C-alpha cells in the first residue's frame, strides 16, 4: 500500500466514525492532535469489560470514553440511575461500586473492570421493596422523583458508613444529592427511620 493510499483509508475510517462529529466540533488544536496520531484507529477500539451488576455477571465491550452511567443507561437499559448534570454536581447518578457510593457520571466504565455494581434496580426483592424505598414512600421523600434513585443509593451508603446519627449529620453526608423539588426534610425523616430500624443494605 503506498503512502497516499494509507492516508486515504484512514480518512475513510474517520468519516465513518461517530467520533468525527466530536472531532469537528473541537478546537483546531485538538483536531490537529488527533490527525497527527498515527494510531488514531486504535483510539476508537472497544475494549472488553467484565462487571457484576446487581448480582449478575456481564461480559461487555465498550469504548474507553463511555462513563459507567452511560453504560448502565444506554447499553444495558438500566435507566433507574439518572443523569442530572453529568458533571458530579447533583448525585442523581449515584450507584455503589464494591459497596461504596460514587457518582457514575465521572467514572469511566472501563475503570470498573471486575467490580460489583449495585444500582437502584438491585434493591427490591421481587415485588418487595427495600426498607429504604418503603421509607421514602411513607415519608413523601420526593415530588418529581428524578433525584430519588440517587438519594436512595446515597442514603443506604450514608447509614452503612455510620454517618446517619443525627439530622445534622445526615444533612451533611447527604449533601452530594441535590433535590430541585426540595424534599430534603422528608428525605432526612426517611433515612432516620431506616437507621433507627437497624436496617442496612
Amino acid at each position, binding site marked *: 500500500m503506498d503512502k497516499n493510499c494509507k492516508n486515504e483509508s484512514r480518512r475513510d475510517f474517520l468519516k465513518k466514525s461517530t467520533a468525527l462529529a466530536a472531532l469537528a466540533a473541537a478546537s483546531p488544536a485538538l483536531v490537529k492532535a488527533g490527525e497527527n496520531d498515527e494510531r488514531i484507529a486504535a483510539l476508537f477500539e472497544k475494549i472488553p469489560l467484565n462487571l457484576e451488576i446487581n448480582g449478575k455477571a456481564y461480559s461487555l465491550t465498550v469504548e474507553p470514553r463511555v462513563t459507567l452511567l452511560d453504560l448502565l443507561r444506554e447499553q444495558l437499559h438500566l435507566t433507574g440511575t439518572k443523569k442530572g448534570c453529568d458533571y458530579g454536581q447533583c448525585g442523581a447518578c449515584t450507584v455503589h461500586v464494591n459497596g461504596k457510593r460514587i457518582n457514575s457520571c465521572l467514572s*469511566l466504565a472501563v475503570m470498573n473492570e471486575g467490580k460489583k455494581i449495585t444500582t437502584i434496580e438491585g434493591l427490591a426483592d421481587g415485588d418487595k421493596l427495600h426498607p429504604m424505598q418503603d421509607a421514602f414512600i411513607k415519608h413523601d421523600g420526593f415530588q418529581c422523583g428524578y433525584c430519588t434513585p440517587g438519594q436512595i443509593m446515597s442514603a443506604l451508603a450514608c447509614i452503612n458508613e455510620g454517618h446517619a446519627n443525627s439530622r445534622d449529620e445526615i444533612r451533611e453526608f447527604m449533601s452530594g444529592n441535590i433535590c430541585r423539588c426540595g424534599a430534603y426534610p422528608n428525605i432526612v425523616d426517611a433515612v432516620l427511620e431506616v437507621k433507627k430500624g437497624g436496617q442496612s443494605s
Partner: protein
Amino acid sequence: MINFEYIRASSVKAAVDALAKNPTGKFIAGGTNLIDLMKRGVTAPTRLIDINDLPLKQVEETTDGINIGALAINSEVSENELIKNNFPLLSMAFAAGASAQLRNMATVGGNMMQRTRCSYFYDTTMPCNKRQPGSGCGALQGHNRMHAIFGASDKCIAVHPSDMCVALAALNATVSISGPKGNRKIPFTDFHRLPEDKPELDNTLQKGEIITGVLIPKNNFNKNHYLKIRDRASYAFALISVAAALEMDVDTIKKVNIAMGGVAHKPWRMTEAEKFLVGKKATRENFSKAAELAMKSAKGYGHNNFKLKMAPIAITESLMIATGIV
C-alpha cells in the same frame, strides 16, 4: 468526549514510561476532575493511563510521621484512625471537600493536581491564559467573585480549589515524586506555584513525572481547626478557608502554622502572622493583629473585594475556634 486510548499501568515505572511514549496522554486516578474537564473540551488527552492498580494506597506510620500514597482515597484518609488522632486538621479539611460520593472516588494525587474552577477556564468560548496561553484573562475585568486576593498576576487571578492542600501546606508536608529522571521530594508549599507569566502551569511537577505520595512530619499541634466559608453549608468550593494548627503551652502559643484556601493560585501560608503569634497568648486581640499582618499584601479585583473583609475575620475566627476561645 473525544475518544482516547486507554491503558492500565501495573507499576510506577510502567506508568511513567507509558506517559513518556505519549506526551499528549494523562494519568487518570479517581477521574472526578479529569473526566469533567474532558467532557467540557477543556482538555483532550489522546491516551489515558489508569494508575489505580499501582501500589500507592497506603496510609502508614513511619518513624518521623505518616506516609500517604498518591492513590489513597480521600474518604479513607479522612476517616483513618491514625489521621484522625494525629492529623485532625487533615481529616477536617477532607471532610469539608466535595461530597461523600466524590470523596469516595478522589485520590490524594488527583486532589493535588485538580485544576482551578474559574469559570473562564471552564468556558472554552472565553479567553483564559491558563487554558489557552496568550488568549487573555477573562476574570481580570470580568466576574471574579471567586478569585484570588493574594499573589495573582495580570495574566491570571484564578485560585487553587483544594481543601486538602490547604491542610497539607499548614502541616509542612513533603511531596514524593517519581519520573523519567528518578525520584525526588519537594516541600508541599513548593509544589503549587503562583501564576506569574505562566498561568498554564499550576505546579512544579515536570513533564512525565508522577506523584507517588505525601509525607507529613510528626507534630505537637494540640489545637487545630479547618474553617471553610462557602455559598452553601456543604458541597461547595471555598470562598475562603483557613487551616490553623497550634502547639499551645497552657495559654501561650509555642508554634503555629496557618494556611488559607480560596485566596491564591496555591495554598497561602501566612508566615508573618505565624511569626507574630509565637510566644504570645491566645487572645482575640492577638489573633486579629496577626490577621491584619497577613492581609498586608492582599488586593481585590472588584467582585471579590468582599474577601478583603472576610479573610481577616476568617483567620481570627479559625484561630479562636482552634484554641477554644469561642
